[in-house]
């Protein structure tokens, strides 16, 4: 599904990723954990195609296609989804309209028929109910005046509607209370299956109690320094990053 080899990238001449090797097979959920400044967000932005990051070496392929050669919208159409750490507010853009435009853009790119407003609303309301969200979510402007928790839930709603093959969740747990965390985790877990992979990026082990990963990778100073099963997250929680980082050094 996702294969990253020797990926080096940075911003404004500052190298942040220093040779990432990572494979996320189809149907698996992997977690990337790491201290602040280790390159977690940079990795997610480089994979999603944000401008301003320069890839200096290495490759990233998605289902065999060169991900780094694609525009952000092409990556989305191919089935990649980034849940933002800081979802962006779009004043003047209604959430329902935004979601339908996104979904139909992706369907169009895939050669699938577009959904009309009625069919879309029916589907969106179903997802909202499933995710235990408020009905007015669709009527509001995208993320405008949303609490931190509502913004993250809106990311999960988008994910549920766009049905990506690979979701990258960039610190989706930050700023969430325990109830919101459960809702977000339930949303991700509901998508799990043989056709869904995820890369869960987090600072804390807490989220991984709810989204149990198949593999855990530790990112430090732009490299993955350790990989292991879900128990690695608990080890990190018990000993802190310092212990793991020193051990690997």
């Amino acid at each position, binding site marked *: 599904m996702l294969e990253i080899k020797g990926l080096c990238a940075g911003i404004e001449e500052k190298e942040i990723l220093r040779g990432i090797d990572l494979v996320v097979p189809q149907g698996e959920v992997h977690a990337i954990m790491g201290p602040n400044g280790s390159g977690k967000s940079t990795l997610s932005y480089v994979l*999603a*195609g*944000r*401008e301003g990051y320069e890839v200096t070496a290495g490759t990233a392929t998605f289902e065999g296609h060169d991900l780094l050669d694609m*525009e*952000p*919208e092409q*990556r*989305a*159409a191919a089935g990649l*989804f*980034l849940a*933002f750490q800081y*979802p*962006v507010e*779009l*004043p*003047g*853009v209604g959430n329902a309209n*935004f979601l339908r*435009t*996104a*979904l139909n*853009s*992706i369907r169009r*790119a895939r050669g699938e028929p577009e959904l009309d407003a009625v069919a879309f609303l029916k589907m969106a309301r179903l997802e909202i109910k499933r995710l235990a969200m408020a009905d007015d979510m669709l009527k509001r402007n995208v993320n405008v005046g949303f609490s931190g928790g509502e913004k993250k839930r809106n990311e999960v709603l*988008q994910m549920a509607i*766009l049905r990506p093959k690979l979701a990258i969740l960039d610190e989706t747990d930050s700023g969430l209370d325990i109830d919101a965390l459960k809702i977000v985790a339930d949303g991700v877990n509901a998508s799990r299956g043989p056709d869904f992979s995820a890369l869960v990026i987090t600072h804390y082990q807490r989220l991984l109690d709810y989204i149990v990963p198949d593999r855990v990778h530790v990112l430090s100073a732009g490299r993955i320094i350790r990989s292991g099963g879900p128990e690695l997250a608990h080890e990190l929680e018990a000993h802190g990053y310092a212990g793991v980082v020193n051990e690997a050094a």
Partner: protein
Amino acid sequence: MSAIQPNALQLATTGFLARFEGNSGLRTDPIRRRAAETLRHIGLPTQREEAWHFTSLRPLAGIAFQGVHTTHDHGHDLLARMSGISGPRLVFVNGRHDTAVSEMPDFTTVGEPTLNEPDDAVSMLNTMFADDGAHIEIPPGVDAESILLVSLGVADGEPVAFHPRHRIQLHPGARLTLIDVSLGRGTYLNNPVFDIEVAEGATLVHLRLQDDATDAFHLSSVRANIAARGTYDSFALTLGARLARMEVHANLAGEHGAAHLNAAQLLGGVQHADFTTVVAHDAPSCASRQTVKNVLTGKSRGVFQGRIEVARIAQKTDGYQMNQALLLSPDAEIDSKPQLQIYADDVKCSHGATVGELDLDQLFYLRSRGISEPDARAILVRAFLAEALDPITHDQTRALMENAIEAWWQGRHI
């Protein structure tokens, strides 16, 4: 000794005066005569005049505008865009009322206007030549719903100039929504003046779409007098003309009056559009609101000049002015000049201006959801304009405006 070459503005002035002197019907009228004499003495305004610092009328020079002749092309096909607007309509073709496609509204007459002394250059030009226009007079307490006023400029050969003079009077408690649209093709000068009286407790909603031809000139002036508890609520969308200047002079003459002078200017190519307002708060407890949005592409230039004059008597004035510009090209330019002249001491007046490009974080967010870059840009521009369009409660006009914006956007890929 070398001959003194007249500059471009003098040439343009001379052209208008020659046309005036050549028309015996016009030149004998004393008010027109005075306007012409004033023009002869001071000429068209130059950029040395403060009110015209950002806008030059030089492009008018060298164009031999003719008075209106009957055209073979009546431009009636242009009316198709108005099919979604129901109710009575007044259609003027090159400034002349066209009975064939008008549906006469109640309380309305058309014909030679009553002129008053002009006080700005745009109105002066109009006063010299105005020979037709609508006179709408809504009786006390009557809700006249909506009237569509369409100006078609049709210059199939020679450039033409027309100068309609419209008089809109709302008696106490009356209501009217005036939908004011100008369209056309060819090279022409559209120079309308609106004399507006809003009596006590009356409300005039003035929704304007300026989509004149790309080679056209648009010079318009609104003079609105608003009595106590009266409201003049206007929104002007500027899309057309190579050179446009819209002036709005609103005089809040009675307590608790309100003036909303909102506008949006969407420009491309080498278009220049100027929205200039003067709000005179001459009575206490009045409110004025101005939100002006500019979306500028190519080498276009947008101008907003907003003056708020608060007289000593006008305590408890509430004035607000905001000019926002989205520059979609490095060669586009916005000039913004707020002017607050406040002689009262208990007032609330604020103004602000923002200039920016599309937000890169917002663009990336949209694109990361699969939306193409052109679509993402269009969504953000529409969102930028939403605040200006949202107050339009007349659904048919709102749709007309949105369609016009959509067509503008489709025609200019950025």
